[in-house]
């Protein structure tokens, strides 16, 4: 795909996800894109060397500084796809782990349901079942992840 096509896929996918209610996820991705990839740059005799992604290295020298590089169109699509993948896979894992823990716990209520309910005074009054019954996130992950793999494969064909 060309950069223009990748930009179009990014816009289309962003709009699709926002329309589905995943605008919080799109916002997280846009926040990361806005900041850019944090890189270190080492200078010798006033000349910049090749930038590298920031590593967990606490050593500092007077010659090393940090900066950011903008994400390329293919990176932006991959960030969005990765965010959907993480959301689906992690929510499915968490639902399964929490459900399993409480169903194995003899001290826990037998219903095995976990409800998230806000304190109305502070954050609204919509309660939601986050764990219990079918693992909806796992079902969605099973359907969606192969399609995301296919999208990643196509975007890599440049």
């Amino acid at each position, binding site marked *: 795909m060309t950069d223009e*096509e990748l930009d179009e*896929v990014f816009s*289309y*996918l962003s709009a699709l*996800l926002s329309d*589905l*209610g*995943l605008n919080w*996820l799109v916002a*997280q*991705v846009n*926040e*990361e894109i806005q*900041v850019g990839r*944090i890189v270190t740059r080492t200078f010798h005799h006033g000349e910049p060397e090749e930038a590298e*992604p*920031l*590593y*967990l290295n*606490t050593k500092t020298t007077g010659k090393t500084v940090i900066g950011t590089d903008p994400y390329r169109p293919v990176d932006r699509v991959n*960030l969005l796809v990765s*965010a959907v993948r*993480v*959301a*689906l896979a*992690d*929510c499915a*894992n*968490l639902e399964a*782990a*929490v459900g399993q*823990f*409480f169903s194995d*716990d003899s*001290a*826990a*209520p037998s219903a095995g*349901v*976990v*409800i*998230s*309910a*806000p*304190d109305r*005074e*502070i*954050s*609204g*009054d919509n*309660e*939601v*079942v*986050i764990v219990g019954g079918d693992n*909806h*996130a796992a079902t*969605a992950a099973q359907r*969606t992840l192969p*399609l995301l793999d*296919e999208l990643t494969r*196509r975007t890599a064909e440049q």
Partner: protein
Amino acid sequence: VTPDEAQLLAEIRSALTPLPPSLVNSSHGSDIFEAYILTLVVAAARFEGGTVTYETVNGTAPAQFFFRTSPGHIYSRLHPYTHAIIDFGTRPPLEAHVGILVAGRSHVPHECDVAVLDRAEAEDCRRNRTEPRSTKLTLSVEAKFYTTTLSLNLARAFIGLISDLSTSFPCFVANTTSPSAMRLLAARKDRDWFDQVMAGRPSVDLLRAFFATAFHHYKAR
């Protein structure tokens, strides 16, 4: 986009419909993550020999788990919010909560995504409709459920938060990571942080061990 790509994107849309409840907004993913961290706290308490039971804010046995969509008051009775009671026998019992407000040193309320505190303090707060004091916390967790690299702001906010909390065992826990955020947290030894925490990953063992250490210290005090 080409017709093929449009078809693929339409299939993605269809596969994500209906959206799982845990993905409807960002707080729902965070809520499950916090519930998961509570299960690790409970497991660590049992590992340290504690007895764990569950109770609602009304003092009754829960019929099902109600956790707070953060933040909330420990005394709120809008729902039968559930907490765990941890008893080591030789020391006063503790309570483990999800998403409560806690009063910091500066007397302003802070949200603790997961908190373990003295049961006596929790009971007083439920009676008097006040927020627990952070001096009564055994451990507190700042939990971040993210789908991307963690923003540096989150690490900065945690550093600010723990400067106003008196708990001995505060920690930052996230399901993803970020080299820059972790670098900031790693710059000082008194900041405990756990990244890439997810069921089935080795990072969970480290976090559970941190919680067990907090309980081990509590028993020895």
